[in-house]
């Protein structure tokens, strides 16, 4: 879309969406609401990626984070004990350490951003090219080793997660809530 004003407006809208989602995650009383509010953050960030002409990253953001991570988080939340007690399941604790951590994180992000791009606008081209093939080519040439390392990492992740989860499941098998029939 031409006209940088539109881009700026869209940027602020998407940023607002992401930030509203993040704020809801942090401040919502109900842990389930927090989990669902992540959707706004993920989609907003994906929109920002799309605005930065990073099409593959945007789509992968939606696919992996909304389609996978969010579902996992929701399942995890719904599996937590005492979730039904909770309009109050998200108490705000440790305000000062939290603030410090937030400031440290913000500083890190600002430093990274400035280092990576410098004070210049990223959105320059009106019709930037697709990033799918460049990324694919890079994964086949420069980043062959990381690519394969990722598969090993995924293997390790799966093994570890399954081991931990199934162990807990077996331990919890005696509990009265868990012993129910498969649904």
């Amino acid at each position: 879309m031409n006209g940088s004003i539109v881009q700026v407006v869209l940027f602020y809208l998407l940023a607002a969406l992401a930030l509203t989602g993040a704020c809801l995650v942090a401040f919502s009383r109900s842990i389930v609401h927090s989990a669902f509010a992540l959707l706004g953050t993920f989609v907003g960030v994906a929109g920002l990626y799309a605005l930065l002409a990073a099409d593959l990253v945007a789509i992968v953001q939606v696919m992996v984070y909304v389609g996978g991570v969010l579902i996992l988080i929701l399942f995890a939340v719904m599996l937590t004990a005492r979730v039904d007690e909770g309009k109050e399941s998200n108490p705000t604790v440790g305000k000062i350490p939290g603030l410090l951590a937030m400031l440290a994180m913000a500083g890190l992000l600002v430093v990274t951003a400035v280092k990576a791009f410098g004070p210049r606008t990223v959105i320059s081209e009106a019709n930037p090219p697709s990033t799918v093939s460049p990324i694919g080519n890079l994964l086949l040439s420069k980043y062959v080793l990381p690519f394969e390392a990722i598969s090993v990492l995924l293997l390790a992740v799966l093994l570890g997660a399954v081991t931990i989860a199934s162990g807990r499941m077996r331990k919890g098998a005696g509990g009265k809530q868990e012993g129910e029939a498969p649904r």
Partner: protein
Amino acid sequence: MHFEYSVVLIYLTVSAVIVGLALWLGRFLRPNLPDPQKAQIYECGERPIGSAWFNFNPRFYLIALVFIVFDAEIALTFPVATVARGWIARSDGTGWVAVVEILLFFVILLAALAYVWGKGELDWSRELTSPEEMP
């Protein structure tokens, strides 16, 4: 490319507006006769017992876990699969790099799947191997 993504944005907005508009217009058409019995949730005609928000079978969680791993794999392999054709078409034999790389990736993931399979975590209702395991 930005044009394409603006199409996506506008489509999503329009669909949300359609839903909102239909519901809003329906407001003038539909009756509104609130009633405590209507506001009850449905539980086969009985009075609902307790809240529905309780814990359920944790196997769903495990499925989501396995899915995330595969989802990440899909996200990573699709760009490679996209360019694989071009690599294979090259005459200098570098196409085998693509083939071997994707194959290796698949094999490692399949090994993970085989492990989960072998542990019996993919069976929804796991068979009890010994009576001691009974809850």
